């Protein structure tokens, strides 16, 4: 009786080993680069055809903080807006300009980020070679048509920021 049972067990095991099997391996990667909006921007309206975040024109510059805990592993791409995400109906074109600058750093050597930045179209890339926090300020200006007045209403535009692993 004991012998039979053992044989049966071997048969079952042999049958099981004959099938294909997939084993999952799972892992979580926690980003070592994070982006935080420290100050939301506000458009000032110095003239009827102009919206700008410049403080001198009653605007507020948006401030974005990028924290990196692993040096020389990420780049950050920040894009100033080139369209309104919401606005009254506009019948003419809008001319967009903007700039992204380093506002403050947590390490003196990060100040070179500003001189080493790469700009193309409405994007600006910064190579985050040091660990720590970097604050960026974004200037955005929208001019409507050929000195045409913006229709009254609420205008919203979005600055996009992205950590890009190197």
């Amino acid at each position, binding site marked *: 009786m004991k012998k039979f049972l053992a044989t049966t067990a071997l048969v079952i095991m042999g049958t099981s080993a004959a099938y294909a099997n997939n084993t999952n391996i799972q892992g979580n990667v926690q980003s070592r680069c994070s982006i935080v909006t420290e100050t939301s921007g506000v458009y000032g309206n110095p003239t009827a055809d102009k919206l700008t975040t410049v403080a001198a024109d009653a605007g507020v510059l948006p401030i974005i903080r990028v924290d990196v805990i692993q040096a020389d592993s990420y780049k950050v791409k920040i894009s100033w807006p080139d369209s309104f995400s919401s606005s009254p109906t506009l019948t003419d074109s809008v001319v967009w300009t903007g700039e992204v600058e*380093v*506002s*403050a*750093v*947590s*390490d*003196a*050597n*990060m*100040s*070179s980020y*500003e*001189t080493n930045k790469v700009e193309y179209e409405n994007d600006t890339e910064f190579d985050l070679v040091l660990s720590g*926090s970097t*604050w960026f300020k974004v200037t955005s200006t929208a001019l409507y048509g050929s000195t045409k007045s913006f229709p009254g209403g609420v205008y919203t535009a979005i600055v996009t920021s992205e950590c890009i692993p190197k």
Partner: protein
Amino acid sequence: MTNVIPQALGLNVNGVYHRYTIEKDPTTDSVVKICNENPNGNGCTYLLVDDWSQEPGSTKIGYDPVSILGELLGKGSITVTGDGTITESIIHYDYVYDTCDDPLNDPRCPNYESALLQYLMDNGLLDDPDVTDPYLNEYVQMQLDRKTEQEEEDGNKEEIAEEEETEEETLQEQLAVGGATEKIANAAEQAAIMLALSQATNLGAYYAQDIQGGEYKENIILKDNEIVDNKKALRSLASDRKHREIVRSQYK
């Protein structure tokens, strides 16, 4: 940056936050030092060095976690060596301290009672008062004087009240009609009263008086034949008229 940290017992600084802006030429060398001197010796108890050599100026924000007793942090400073100017500098100290390190700070602290007792004893606040203290004697005498004055004042008030009562009784007696009812009820007295009232002949002397009458003739004689006009009145009438003309002219 002197005495920026409270002088509380057991205060411990857990971190130093700093923010400053340096303006400099990117091709020059400069070093920024944030220092808190050691009050018990030379050098800095807390020292942070930022090397900005060959870097462009910028704003630096940082938090430096430390663990330093507050009493060891002396006069603070932020200095730049080499090229560069510091503006908008802010240094914040993150500290904690045990409020019961000195139990007298809060009655809820353990050993508060014993600490308070010790404090009172140390400052001689539980000793018996000095009976030879001239100020104490003076104070006692002042209280006794005040009591005597109060008693005299109360005595005077009682005398005045008694006098008033006596006066009131006398006045009542004067105004009293006691006995009148007996006179009215007595028939003989009534007859006498009626007799007195019926003495009408006694009024005759008043009715019998004659007043000299007749015709009263005019006895005022004007000696002047001409009555002179009152010039003042005429002048007044003239000015009234002029005033009236001026007022009327406004509505023409």
